[in-house]
């Protein structure tokens, strides 16, 4: 997961929490415009942020929420409790998506539908129309849909017969999908090409284009106002289509149809009596089960008729149907009967062949037959249909009709059961199918088959697979349809029995246990929980879509927390004190041995000290980690700075940033900011030449400025390198001499690398004129001071004509300082370990006095020596040890090594260096003071100042 997304998720969580709080507060004071504004700001920010990522569903819901709050702010809508509920729901939804993103990096495409519904419900609160009026439904999940809408039917009839026949022949198990994609009018301005999108629809069988409205006069036409609708018939699974159209989901209307709905004969309805005869014969053949003869008759009839006739078209479909599903008498019969009426078979009505006893029954069956919807709504509808269908028997229908109805129901169940098993609601689906089948058994009177059915259903539920029940259906289907209703009384009983059954079977599913936290299934239980047939037949009111957040749900814990820096600093101070306090233990151990004379006790204290020391160090390390920040914090300002500055100077510069993830203590990073800006400005102003000069010098026109951060041995190293004209040491020397920074003597001796480092000297400037960018002669001096303040060093290398390189080295942290304790004149002093090179004991004889200065030779190098007592103005002489050797602490000062004579060396300790305050602050010789473990005060020398 990239850092940006991580940041987004953590911010989103914060915002969601903020939104939740504000909503709660609003409940108490609903009139507060201030709260509403804050709320709006939260959502607005969240929406803006979400736009950075590829999460259209998230953005869509947030956008709708933002619109709603904006409307409330403007007084267009009144704040009310349902609105708060809805907003909380929407925020739960956003939170849920965030959880999924956090866990998997993406969320399931199935959320697209929910997001559209939510956004729409939110918008409805405003009273404003949804994004795309008319297309609002997106996937029409309504179970009571009486077959395909007129729109879909006209769409289907627009598909050439050949293509429809191919699609019907393919008999896609998941059903076919009719898409009506109505892009928004201004989509062209957003760079969309909806035609291209439609052409690339997965599993596309056919596509067509239609105008949404009548065409205006050409002269008045706006070519860029999209008025086209794209119609697509696809055999791809609904999920795939949803995923493909997820960005424009609200502009899409998707209807699932059974392949049978494609049987739409077309042509010239020029009827005649000859057809009537054929219909009679054909029905006879069909009932006699002689499909072959039927096929022959149809074929010869087809040869006799003109191709263009409606009749011929129907015959072609009949032939195809005998080929594709010869066993399905209902379909064949329907096609044959349609020859009589010259009207396309009403497939959804046919399924409920029992006729229009109750509108609900028709609706339910229609939904099953013609709109094989996946999902819980349909499952529950099917369940209810069991009761209805058995009630069908009550009306005292003719035997054949009942048989046909049962056959149709069984067919549907078979179809449902052959859907893929890999869905969360498979158990519900199986139970629903079993309930339907049970109803059929009851109404046909085959009660003895009931135990077998129940057994099959139970094993199906247990295995979470439809296979056992499907096998049962295959075996008993024919038998069921053939069996007559045993007695007129059986049916009413069945009806009254079946309904409670269906309801009670649905009930266990309604317990929250089945839904767990599984988001896609979250809607299912609520849909199934409605035991009343009327309620189940109607689709769930959309506003009641919940996203399964309950008190007992596990909320994803936030991974990051925001802490006030003061708290961290306090922690830092405490661990510092801890480090000091633990240093008291070795003293204690020493006292146990020397004063109280118990060496065992001393050893034990030392052992304990080792443990505490380890923990303290780890603790210190962890706290350091908390304070660590990546250098990108400082680096991020440079792209803009370089761009602006180079534009102003008319130079071309490529900025290269490297190692932005390198981390260091917050204080260090913050102290880096200004020095780096100075250095970069200097590089741009003085270093990199104008494009013409660069080309003349044989370099590419665009200069390169590299800023690289890296970690080296516990220090952060920042390198700023340009390929500009470099620094001419001769010029520096002359300027430095002119300004009196160096004397004549030094001028002659100074080496070129030393000379270029003179730019850091105070008051130095080579520029003839002061510009607003640089040239005041304070820049590099300020850089050096700022860096040294945090114990850093800065070094410059330059080669004339090739470029300049500045290396800044900084400690990773500055909280705890490691110092060496030395003794002189019975006092102890600290010397920062950074400065210490080595400790040696030099025999007095090896110390030579040259003029008035002492020096010695160490490994072939002359090291000047200075006595600490002299440096500090103490009258005493340095003491030597028994062998007459003097203790020499070799330190680094600038680029030189120098020996300090002391009386004795002690251990090194970690201390918290406190700068001198008050009147003592003026004593430059000391860097600060620190408290030691035994309670004494240690003065830490500022080596550079002392010498």
């Amino acid at each position, binding site marked *: 997961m990239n850092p940006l997304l991580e940041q987004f998720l953590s911010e989103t969580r914060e915002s969601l929490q903020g939104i939740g709080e504000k909503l709660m507060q609003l409940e108490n004071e609903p009139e507060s415009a201030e709260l509403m504004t804050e709320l709006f700001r939260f959502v607005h920010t969240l929406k803006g942020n979400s736009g950075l990522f590829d999460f259209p569903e998230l953005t869509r819901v947030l956008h709708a929420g933002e619109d709603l709050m904006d409307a409330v702010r403007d007084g267009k809508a009144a704040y009310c409790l349902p609105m708060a509920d809805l907003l909380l729901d929407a925020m739960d939804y956003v939170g849920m998506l965030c959880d999924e993103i956090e866990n998997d990096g993406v969320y399931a495409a199935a959320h697209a539908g929910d997001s559209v519904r939510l956004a729409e419900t939110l918008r409805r609160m405003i009273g404003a129309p949804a994004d795309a009026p008319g297309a609002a439904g997106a996937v029409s999940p309504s179970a009571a849909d009486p077959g395909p809408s007129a729109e879909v039917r006209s769409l289907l009839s627009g598909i050439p017969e050949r293509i429809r026949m191919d699609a019907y022949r393919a008999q896609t198990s998941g059903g076919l999908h009719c898409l009506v994609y109505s892009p928004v009018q201004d989509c062209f301005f957003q760079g969309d090409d909806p035609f291209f999108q439609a052409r690339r629809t997965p599993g596309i069988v056919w596509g067509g284009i239609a105008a949404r409205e009548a*065409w205006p006069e050409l002269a008045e036409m706006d070519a860029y106002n999209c008025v086209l609708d794209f119609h697509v018939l696809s055999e791809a699974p609904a999920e795939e289509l949803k995923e493909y159209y997820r960005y424009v989901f609200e502009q899409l209307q998707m209807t699932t149809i059974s392949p049978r709905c494609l049987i739409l004969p077309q042509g010239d309805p020029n009827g005649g009596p000859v057809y009537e005869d054929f219909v009679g014969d054909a029905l006879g053949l069909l009932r006699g089960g002689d499909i072959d003869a039927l096929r022959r008759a149809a074929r010869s009839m087809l040869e006799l008729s003109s191709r263009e006739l409606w009749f011929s078209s129907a015959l072609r479909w009949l032939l195809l149907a005998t080929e594709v599903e010869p066993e399905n008498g209902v379909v064949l019969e329907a096609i044959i009967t349609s020859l009589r009426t010259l009207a396309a078979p009403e497939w959804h009505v046919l399924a409920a062949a029992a006729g229009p006893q109750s509108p609900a029954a028709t609706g339910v069956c229609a939904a099953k037959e013609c709109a094989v919807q996946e999902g819980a709504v349909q499952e529950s509808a099917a369940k209810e249909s069991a009761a209805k269908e058995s009630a069908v028997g009550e009306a005292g229908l003719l035997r054949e009709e009942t048989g046909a109805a049962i056959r149709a129901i069984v067919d549907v169940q078979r179809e449902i059961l052959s859907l893929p098993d890999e869905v969360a609601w498979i158990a519900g689906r199986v139970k629903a199918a079993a309930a339907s089948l049970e109803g059929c058994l009851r109404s046909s009177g085959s009660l003895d088959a009931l135990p077998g059915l129940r057994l099959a259903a139970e094993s199906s539920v247990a295995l979470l697979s439809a296979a056992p029940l499907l096998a049962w259906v295959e075996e008993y289907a024919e038998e069921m349809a053939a069996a007559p209703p045993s007695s007129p009384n059986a049916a009413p009983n069945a009806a009254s029995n079946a309904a409670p059954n269906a309801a009670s079977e649905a009930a266990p599913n309604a317990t929250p246990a089945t839904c767990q936290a599984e988001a896609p299934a979250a809607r299912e239980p609520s849909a199934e929980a409605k035991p009343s047939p009327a309620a189940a037949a109607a689709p769930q009111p959309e506003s009641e879509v919940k996203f399964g957040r309950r008190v007992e749900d596990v909320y994803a814990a936030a991974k990051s927390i925001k802490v006030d820096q003061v708290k961290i600093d306090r922690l830092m101070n405490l661990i510092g004190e801890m480090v000091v306090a633990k240093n008291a233990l070795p003293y204690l151990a020493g006292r146990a041995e020397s004063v109280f004379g118990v060496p065992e006790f001393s050893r034990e204290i030392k052992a304990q000290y080792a443990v505490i020391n380890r923990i303290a160090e780890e603790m210190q390390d962890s706290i350091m980690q908390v304070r660590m920040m990546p250098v990108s914090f400082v680096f991020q300002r440079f792209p803009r700075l370089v761009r602006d500055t180079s534009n102003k100077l008319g130079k071309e510069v490529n900025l290269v940033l490297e190692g932005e993830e390198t981390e260091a203590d917050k204080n260090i990073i913050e102290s880096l900011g200004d020095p780096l800006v100075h250095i970069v400005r200097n590089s741009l102003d003085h270093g990199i030449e104008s494009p013409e000069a660069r080309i003349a010098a044989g370099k590419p026109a665009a200069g390169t400025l590299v800023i690289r951060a890296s970690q080296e041995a516990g220090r952060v190293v920042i390198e700023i390198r340009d390929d500009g004209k470099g620094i001419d040491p001769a010029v520096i020397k002359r300027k430095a001499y002119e300004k009196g920074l160096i004397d004549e003597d030094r001028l002659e001796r100074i080496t070129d690398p030393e000379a270029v480092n003179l730019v850091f000297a105070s008051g130095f400037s080579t520029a003839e004129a002061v510009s607003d960018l640089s040239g005041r002669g304070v820049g590099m001096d300020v850089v050096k001071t700022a860096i040294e303040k945090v114990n850093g060093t800065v070094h410059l290398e330059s080669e004339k004509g090739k470029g300049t390189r500045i290396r800044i080295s900084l400690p990773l942290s500055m909280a705890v300082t490691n110092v060496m304790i030395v003794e002189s004149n019975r006092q102890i002093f600290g010397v920062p370990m950074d400065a210490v090179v080595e400790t040696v004991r030099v025999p007095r004889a090896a110390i030579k006095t040259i003029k008035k200065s002492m020096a010695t030779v160490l490994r072939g190098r002359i090291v000047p020596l200075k006595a600490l007592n002299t440096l500090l103005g103490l009258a005493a002489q340095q003491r030597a040890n028994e062998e007459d050797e003097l203790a020499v602490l070799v330190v680094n000062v600038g680029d030189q090594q120098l020996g300090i004579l002391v009386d004795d060396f002690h251990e090194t300790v970690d201390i918290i260096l406190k700068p001198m305050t008050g009147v003592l602050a003026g004593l430059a010789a000391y860097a600060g003071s620190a408290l030691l473990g035994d309670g004494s005060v240690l003065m830490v020398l500022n080596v550079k100042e002392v010498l």
Partner: protein
Amino acid sequence: MAIVYTKNKAVFSDAAGAEEAETLLEWLGKHPKGKIDLGACVHLHPANLQVMMAAGCLVTVRSSDQDLAAWIDSALKTI
């Protein structure tokens, strides 16, 4: 240019972008009986398409891209 205009014909080639629609609309305004040749066309932006639909254009040459041709058949008449 993905659309080349001859005396009474707009000849499409490759993919016609949205920016072509303005010119096409203008041309169709001047040549109400203008014919369309989609032979070498592989895709056209819907802005072009709706301009042609509004003008009731006749396609003289169907696109050799069968997929595109099938789509266009539903929107425009072919001679």
